């Protein structure tokens, strides 16, 4: 189970309190009725699904209830940072995404942020 830092509560809390909410920084087109089917499919269905660094939204649904953004490594499941909704995409700290798969949760749980 992941430990996730809520940038509003400013606390590390268990993953059970959170709901994953998909890729971050996708803006709904303002002229949604005018865009083409291709553009709608791009907005609505197509996702990066990165192996490595990903930007995603989480919601602290059993806590403050607010959405926020996170940068996470999808290979190790390690959170690199979390930041408040509405802020622009943040550069990740120098350590960056890890290459190796971490085999157990125990290996990541202690330092998950």
């Amino acid at each position, binding site marked *: *189970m*992941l430990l996730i830092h809520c940038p509003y509560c400013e606390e590390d809390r268990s*993953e*059970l309190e959170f*709901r*994953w909410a*998909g890729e971050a920084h996708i803006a709904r087109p303002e002229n949604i009725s005018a865009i083409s*089917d*291709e553009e*709608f*499919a*791009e907005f*609505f*269905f*197509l*996702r*990066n*699904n*990165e*192996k490595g660094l*990903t930007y*995603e939204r989480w919601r602290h649904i059993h806590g403050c209830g607010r959405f926020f953004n996170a940068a*996470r490594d*999808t*290979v*190790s*499941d390690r959170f690199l940072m979390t930041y408040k909704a509405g802020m622009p995409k943040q550069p990740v700290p120098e350590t960056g995404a890890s290459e190796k*798969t*971490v*085999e*157990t*949760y125990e290996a990541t749980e202690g330092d998950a942020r």
Partner: protein
Amino acid sequence: MRRYSVFAVAREAMRAHKGWEAQWTSPEPRSAYDVIIVGAGGHGLGAAYYLAKEHGITNVAVIEKGWLGGGNTGRNTTIIRSNYLYEESMDIYEHSLKLWEGLSQDLNYNVMYSPRGVMMLSHNTHDMQSFKRHINANRLYGIDNEWLTPEQAKAYVPVLDISKTARYPINGAALQRRGGTARHDAVAWGYARAASDRGVHIIQNCEVTGIRRGPNGEVLGVETSKGFIGAKKIGVSAAGHSSVVMEMAGVRVPLHSTPLQALVSEPLKPIFPCVVMSNTVHAYISQSDKGELVIGAGTDQYNSYSQTGGLQIITHTLDAICELFPIFRRVKMMRQWGGITDNTPDRSPIQGVTPVPGLFVNCGWGTGGFKATPGSANLFAHLIAKGEPHRLAAGLTLDRFRTGRLIDEAAAAAVAH
């Protein structure tokens, strides 16, 4: 290839078993092939086999990053069924089930297909209405599926708790008798042996790192850890890593990859005669021929390539198993593992052409790809050979996310399937 038979066993018994040959060869890659398939799981190996067998295309390589059958083919809970709601789904899963029925004979390899029945438990009025709708749709389409009362369900699975005071009371069940299980490793090995015998090259420990494109955008081949390998046709069958491979050709696919976990218990004497699934409380369980209870858990909520998963996902499933089958409460679990599933927005697979000429995709099988292995492989081979989908897979195109013709099994089943 020497065929396996009772005579072969007798002959080898006389010769101290020194005459068995390797099941498949491991050649060095040629500089070019007619077709390259990325991913040596059941779907990829099967596609290579059917390309050789049904379409006469034998200059084929299957390229695998790790070892053959080491991904989701070796990590699933081996459940086979075809009782889906929509015609597009029934077409492909029933095609697959019919191939399962003759697969051991076709491959001369015992895949241990066991039609022991797949029972889906109903716990409330919504379940009952939904399952009866499935049953009616299936029967109208010529697929077996029947409704059981709680007493009939208990007669089929004696360890089931159908008491009125149960934590998850049961008001009926849907049973597909032709559903069941098969031996997952044997499926990969059987297809590999039969494909290798027909001249297909299986290249393991060779990671595809790029897809080379020509001036008109068409594929020229793949960059790999063993150098460039040319091919005019490339089929991507990379399961959880489909997004990563397709990105190499600049194609975005509507997938998200999540870990799905399974676990097995210590071996028990035969006690569990079929597969039981409960969508509502999310548990599914069967017993392998070795005697282990094979239990499928859920997916984690977030994208991940970690091939592991959260402990709370397993305990959630075991909670349900212990309530449905109180006799299993003191069984010890022996092993747990995870695989990366590629999920589409409508929970139906994608098999079809892509915007890149010569590039074909077979992905999005999500949490239920094993049952589809023979059918998917068979139709993927047709797609690659002919350049257009088979009638039975015509609805599974990548383009459906633009046109809006979704096959919404996600809403039909209301859970991962």
